[in-house]
């Protein structure tokens, strides 16, 4: 008996689960079990399936082509998709720039961009961080100078996830230098094929190429690609970041990853006893599972609040911090569970293109890159230090 959800929500979950069972591609799901990496093709395929079903943009209103689900339904959909081993959809289009265009874009922008975000035809990336402005986002320096009906953009972005496979970037640029930092920023949409855009890979410690540096050398951007008003970009960014906070707890994904960890712990043994029965390891598992449970219920409390009152407040910061701790905890215990076979480092074996022989059990190769990958969970989207600043300032008035 599960008391967290009412019968209508339970029914929706059954519906989603049945859909997943029928429609989630088996070959994509198989990757989740061993931690293989999804490629762009996997993401596009799954995107297409959800698009057909009308669930690809669950939070968008129906008039904009979304599913118009409430926050709890969105959460259920998210959980079930992860439980079925499906990849997270491209958030940059669906959860970030999409809502900004819906709220602040003009009609032309809406009809130009939204359909292709929904269909998955165009991939997006986010041009916010710069080498000199990480946590201090407002100090960004990339400049866009108006020249007739276009802007000339110069500067550099960094940590740009999937810039190398993206068609478009939504980008914060400085358009006024004589005002308070926050008041001189604009929100531009940049075609990644524009002359002068150069993408250079950043290889991270997990051996993956997911983030990039992006350089702009006199890139011409049509003025019609400005979203909303010039110099109001900071407001749109704040709106975007507050949307990003929904789902930031990562409950669905963590539940799926925790299930994988538990399965590994049932296979790995210490002195003849499985780790799931080993007193120390199972205590660590239980501790983490309880933290995940607390996260899940707290997240649900916020979703109910959001459903009733609109957007979530700064209280979502507490979900971000603990959510990242849970994600990191799962990855850490996974590495511990795998033991010495986490020591061989073969991140290339996680790609479809790899043809080598596996070392150790099939879940081993994933463990170490995954541990490294998760270090970022407490850094991006506003580091946990920034989150605690937000809590102490905005919630506690300190």
């Amino acid at each position, binding site marked *: 008996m599960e008391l967290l959800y009412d019968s209508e929500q339970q029914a929706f979950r059954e519906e989603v689960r049945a859909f997943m069972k029928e429609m989630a591609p088996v070959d994509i799901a198989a990757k989740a079990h061993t931690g293989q990496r999804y490629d762009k093709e996997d993401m596009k395929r799954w995107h297409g399936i959800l698009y057909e079903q009308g669930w690809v943009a669950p939070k968008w209103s129906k008039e904009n082509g979304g599913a118009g689900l409430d926050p709890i339904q969105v959460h259920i959909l998210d959980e079930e998709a992860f439980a079925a081993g499906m990849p997270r959809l491209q958030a940059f289009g669906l959860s970030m720039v999409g809502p900004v265009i819906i709220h602040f874009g003009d009609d032309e922008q809406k009809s130009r961009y939204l359909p292709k975000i929904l269909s998955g035809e165009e991939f997006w990336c986010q041009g916010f961080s710069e080498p000199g402005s990480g946590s201090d986002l407002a100090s960004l320096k990339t400049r866009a100078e108006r020249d007739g009906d276009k802007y000339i953009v110069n500067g550099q972005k960094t940590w740009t996830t999937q810039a190398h496979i993206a068609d478009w970037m939504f980008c914060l640029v400085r358009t006024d230098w004589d005002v308070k930092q926050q008041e001189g920023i604009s929100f531009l949409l940049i075609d990644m094929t524009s002359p002068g855009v150069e993408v250079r890979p950043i290889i991270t410690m997990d051996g993956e190429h997911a983030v990039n540096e992006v350089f702009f050398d006199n890139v011409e951007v049509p003025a019609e690609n400005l979203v909303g008003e010039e110099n109001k970009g900071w407001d749109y960014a704040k709106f975007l970041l507050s949307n990003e906070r929904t789902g930031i707890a990562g409950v669905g994904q963590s539940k799926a990853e925790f299930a994988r960890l538990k399965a590994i712990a049932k296979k790995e043994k210490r002195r003849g006893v499985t780790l799931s029965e080993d007193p120390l390891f*199972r205590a660590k598992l*239980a501790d983490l599972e309880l933290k995940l*449970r607390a996260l899940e*219920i707290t997240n649900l409390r916020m979703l109910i609040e959001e459903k009733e009152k609109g957007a979530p407040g700064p209280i979502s910061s507490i979900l971000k*911090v*603990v959510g990242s701790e849970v994600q990191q905890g799962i990855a850490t215990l996974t590495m511990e569970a795998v033991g010495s076979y986490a020591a061989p480092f073969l991140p290339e074996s996680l790609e479809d293109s790899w043809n080598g022989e596996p070392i150790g059990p099939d879940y081993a190769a994933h463990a170490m890159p995954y541990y490294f990958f998760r270090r970022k969970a407490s850094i991006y989207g506003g580091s946990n230090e920034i989150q*605690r600043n937000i809590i102490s300032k905005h*919630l*506690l008035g*300190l």
Partner: protein
Amino acid sequence: MDFTFTEEQSLMADSLRKAYESDYDFDKRRAFLDDTATFHSPAMWQTLAENGFVGLLAPEEAGGFDGGGAEIMAVTAEMSRHLALEPFLATSVMGVRLLVTAGTDAQKSNILPQVVAGEANLAVALYEPGQRYDVAPQTTTTKVDGDDFVLNGTKAVVVGGDSARWIAIGAKLEDVGSAIFLVDAGADGVSKKPYRLVDGRGAVDLELSGVRVGADARMAADDAETALAEIEDWAVTASLAETLGAMEMARDLTHEYLQTREQFGRPIGKFQVLQHNMADVFSDVEFARSMVFWAASEVANPDAPTRRRAVSGAKAFVDNAARNIAERCVQMHGGVGVTDEYALTHYVKRLTLGQILFGDRDEHLLRYTNTNA
């Protein structure tokens, strides 16, 4: 699940708050604390009875409120905010719940009304010395003598045993199995060593030496361990709600202290390390609250493993949060945080007590893993 209280539950908490606010400030409470005869305020207990709180879990036909986990949560959290010393946990949670689930018809009709009226208190003896957190009777035994039973044994840390008129006692039966007896605390052979718990509430160690009871004292539980385990889970749930109330108060006192206490020429709340500590305290309280909701929503679940999984899982989690919050709030206060004259100290005492009563964190973590799917 609805995570907000119903209007009725909120009104209940409000009326409690008003009662405690008017008659139970820090100094008045200190006087109750110093009273070694009752270990609490009999007048306040009477007020609670008159307002229907004592019979919160009793059925309506017995004059009760027919409440469940959510009502327990609302009431005990509120009482804890006022550092209430009254034997609500022992009588109204443990005792009444046991009477309702395991009392004979005669016991229910004779005793329950007195209890609900605040005229007779209850206590449930869960543990024995040296058995730690095992509720199965081990050293307490019975012999049949004609129609009577004769009880011998010792019970440890019986919360509320000091004021209880009746104490429920688990004992091994002569042949096989076990039973629970509702024993008159004044009976021959019952000897009580009363003392205060760390938060000021009363408790006793109990010695039973040839205590003779009639067959009508035997409760209608097939097996003492199963019935007492359920009562222990109710006690844990109430204790978790107390912990939540005390956490909130510790948090608020510390929050206020950070804004008013100055060092190095500015409020100490301007120091980033303290800001982050305070942010973590704030966060910990909210996550703990979620887990208390979980326990409260499942404690009445007739499926024992599901009940236990939620209650023990919540206890293992909340104990940790309680310790972190208590220790950090003291640390942020510095010296003043450990003085008896300051309220924080007393919330910290309650938070600490909660960690060792009714099973500690390791015990509940173990119980949780044993119910693990």
